[in-house]
């Protein structure tokens, strides 16, 4: 796909905005990103979104790499670079600025309140991401069972996620997922 300037600008604007609302890590950005690329703009199907989440998980590197995949899908390599930079840029600038202030007010009551207040927000966002991704990934009742088993196994046991992915890929390959 040959990207035009318009779509790159759109991507840059949306992802920059999204990065500032990604509270609690990259997964906090999933609900906003899904809403934009699947529901509002219809750049990809639910199924493709689930595929990209899966690819991002099996790629070494930070989970934020899903934005690179989404950008590539929408506008090729230029799109991939734009979404990645837009997702990191504003957040980095903010981190550099706030990192400086934060320690100065280490024990200030408002600082403690902000820190504590953002925790439930990030949990709510991660829970929403889980729902959205689980829904997009569910193709049959077997895949729903697979999701639940993977959740239980990784919650209970300390296991390298790659093993879970390998077993899941195998189950999928033989047509069980």
């Amino acid at each position, binding site marked *: 796909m040959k990207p035009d300037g318009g779509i790159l600008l759109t991507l840059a604007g949306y992802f920059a905005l999204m990065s500032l609302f990604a509270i609690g890590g990259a*997964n906090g950005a999933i*609900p906003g990103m899904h809403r934009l690329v699947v529901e509002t703009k219809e750049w990809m199907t639910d199924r493709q979104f689930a595929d990209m989440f899966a690819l991002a998980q099996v790629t070494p590197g930070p989970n934020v790499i899903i934005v690179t995949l989404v950008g590539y899908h929408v506008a090729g390599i230029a799109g991939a670079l734009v979404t990645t930079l837009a997702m990191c840029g504003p957040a980095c600038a903010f981190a550099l600025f706030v990192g400086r202030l934060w320690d100065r007010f280490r024990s200030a009551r408002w600082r403690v309140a902000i820190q504590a207040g953002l925790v439930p*927000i990030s949990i709510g966002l991660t829970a929403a991401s889980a729902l959205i991704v689980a829904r997009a990934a569910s193709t049959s009742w077997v895949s729903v069972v697979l999701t639940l088993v993977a959740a239980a196994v990784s919650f209970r046991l300390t296991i390298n996620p790659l093993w879970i992915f390998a077993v899941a890929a195998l189950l999928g390959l033989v047509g069980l997922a």
Partner: protein
Amino acid sequence: MSQSLSDATPSSASPPTIIELFIAFSIISLSGFGGVLYWSRRMLVEQRKWMTAAEFNDAYALCQILPGPTIVNLSVVFGRSIRGLPGAAVALAGLIGPGLVIVIFLAFLYSIFGTIDALQRMLTGVAAAAAGLIISMTGKMAEPLFEDNNWLVYGVVLAVFVATGLLRWPVWWVLLVLIPLSIVIAWRAQR
């Protein structure tokens, strides 16, 4: 610059150079499947001893609540505390660069082979498992909340989940309302 990082007793004899920073964050990035937190602690605290465990926890707590990806924030905060802005830039480049190249290659393969049946079936399985991992992560994040047993806090979690997950309202509007509310709740819970 983060005072606690720069003013604390140096954890190692000499601070890392720009190149060492880049290499360290590249390795962190390339070792981390399904997230890189574990690997960043291992590299910065255990192997290179550039930070003490307490310094790491402090920096991590800050980076987690800053908007944007946690590890991305950590790389710039740490890089800057060691080597100023160039340090922040190379740490970030080391973290993002290798994964970016690999994933663009994967995306290219996906655009060609994504419709092949066998690959599609494998991805179906992996996608289902990946969804399971994020459910488990939600559970792990939520566990400490139950110690405080504050119903208002549960309410905030539920409101964010319902509004952005079930109702699919725009995240920014939801958060512009709920973040201040949640901070007020945390403020009042302090006494």
